[in-house]
């Protein structure tokens, strides 16, 4: 097993070009879940945590850039994230427990491409852009087009996730995040939901809804969004939003929950978020 800890992006690119099968490390919280024997089969690892370009939170133009290996504890505690992207700060504080948050990263969550990744619905509603770094340079892909299928991403050979760009959200829009698991911490989600929405002149002017653990990939629930935008912001629309959300997903039964419960939980979470929106009650 080969092991590298490059200290510059260039060095990382060279290693990866020489050896495209290296497993990228961005916190190890997915890698180390397997048995130690499983790691025997690894051709090698490339630890990205030492790259300062990939470990930062800073504004660039009108977008907040978050490095792929920045641990969730830093995202959770960042005043910039808390101010402009409260749903992401909330998600970062609900992922795993304290120790996981000290290691796990947005880049790892994206690359692992689990349907239950807690930060992923948030990236969908924030319309995050993913900057991929490859031997030929960088390219930017909307997160929505990055996560292609169950544990499948648009990452090409020799490419790594560099950072995400979060465009400044609409002024005054409300953001919500809710994770439903067997317990408050240290549970993989049964359902995870993010909503970014706004009301102006008494009507819903913006409504971006996404959910995880309800399909093979995290989904933007566009049917619900279309039905909500333009509607009078009255409590009755909350029921409709929940109902439509439950229709829009394709959950499965597995060890953590049933398809029926997932639909039910999603319906309730979306209904409550929408009620809070129309009542303008911050969560």
């Amino acid at each position: 097993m080969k092991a590298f800890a490059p200290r510059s992006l260039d060095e990382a690119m060279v290693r990866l070009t020489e050896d495209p099968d290296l497993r990228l490390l961005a916190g190890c919280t997915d890698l180390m879940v397997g048995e130690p024997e499983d790691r025997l089969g690894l051709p090698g690892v490339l630890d990205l945590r030492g790259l300062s370009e990939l470990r930062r939170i800073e504004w660039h133009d009108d977008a907040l850039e978050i490095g792929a290996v920045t641990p969730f504890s830093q995202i959770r505690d960042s005043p910039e994230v808390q101010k402009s992207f409260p749903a992401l700060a909330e998600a970062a504080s609900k992922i795993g427990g304290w120790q996981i948050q000290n290691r796990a990263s947005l880049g790892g969550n994206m690359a692992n491409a689990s349907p239950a990744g807690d930060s992923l619905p948030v990236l969908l509603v924030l319309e995050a852009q993913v900057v991929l770094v490859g031997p030929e340079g960088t390219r930017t892909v909307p997160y929505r087009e990055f996560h292609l299928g169950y544990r499948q991403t648009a990452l090409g050979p020799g490419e790594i996730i560099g950072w995400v760009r979060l465009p400044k959200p609409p002024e005054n829009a409300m953001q919500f995040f809710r994770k439903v698991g067997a317990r408050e911490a240290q549970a993989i989600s049964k359902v995870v939901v993010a909503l970014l929405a706004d009301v102006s002149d008494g009507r819903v002017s913006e409504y971006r809804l996404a959910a995880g653990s309800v399909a093979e990939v995290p989904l933007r629930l566009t049917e619900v969004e279309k039905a909500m935008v333009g509607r009078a912001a009255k409590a009755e629309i909350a029921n409709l939003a929940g109902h439509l959300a439950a229709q829009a997903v394709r959950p499965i039964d597995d060890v953590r929950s049933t398809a029926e419960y997932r639909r039910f939980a999603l319906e309730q979470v979306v209904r409550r978020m929408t009620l809070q929106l129309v009542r303008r009650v911050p969560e």
Partner: protein
Amino acid sequence: MEDNHRKKQQQKGPESGVTRRHFLTGAGIGAAGLVAGAPVATGAAPTESAAIIEVGEMVPLTLRINGHPRLLLVEPRWSLAYVLREKLVMTGTKLGCDRGECGACTVLVDGVPRYSCMTLALEAEETEITTLEGLLEGEDLGDVQQAFKEHDAFQCGYCTPGQVMSVEGLLRSNPDPSLDEIRLGVSGNLCRCGAYPNIFKATRRAAELKRGKGDRS
């Protein structure tokens, strides 16, 4: 920790040649050296790239544990928890799930609580590792250990070393945590016996002891 770690790397600057931060690459070079010098990694011919480490091959690694450097030979795939328990026989660190769910293996890496079962031993080079053993003050219990004892913050005791390490890490960054902050601080540590109320009380007591207000009996 993460910040310290970063600072350390930045301080190192663009030195020439192989630096200690290049631990993995450096370890590989070390291994090649050992192949030539001593029969540690038998059967593995030195290859063109010095950084290639064959499966089952050991690499030298220095870990700083409780203030003392420990020179070891490790396989790159070994977790820090495995190395602490099986190679150094420091059994204060417990293994419960070995997959980052229970928290029994919690240690401090540069002062921050981390799961040692989810940390490769190689990754921990150049960090300050603190284990349960490192909290002792000579023959006496450390503040957090003393507080756990006073408040009977356990039943079976298996999760206790991990709980103690999480509380130690919490109090280092937040000397006077609220109940909610305490709950978050031990959110990554499961207690099957449900001793949480006493763990929370013990955390408050430990904070007092650390601030020097507590009257130690």
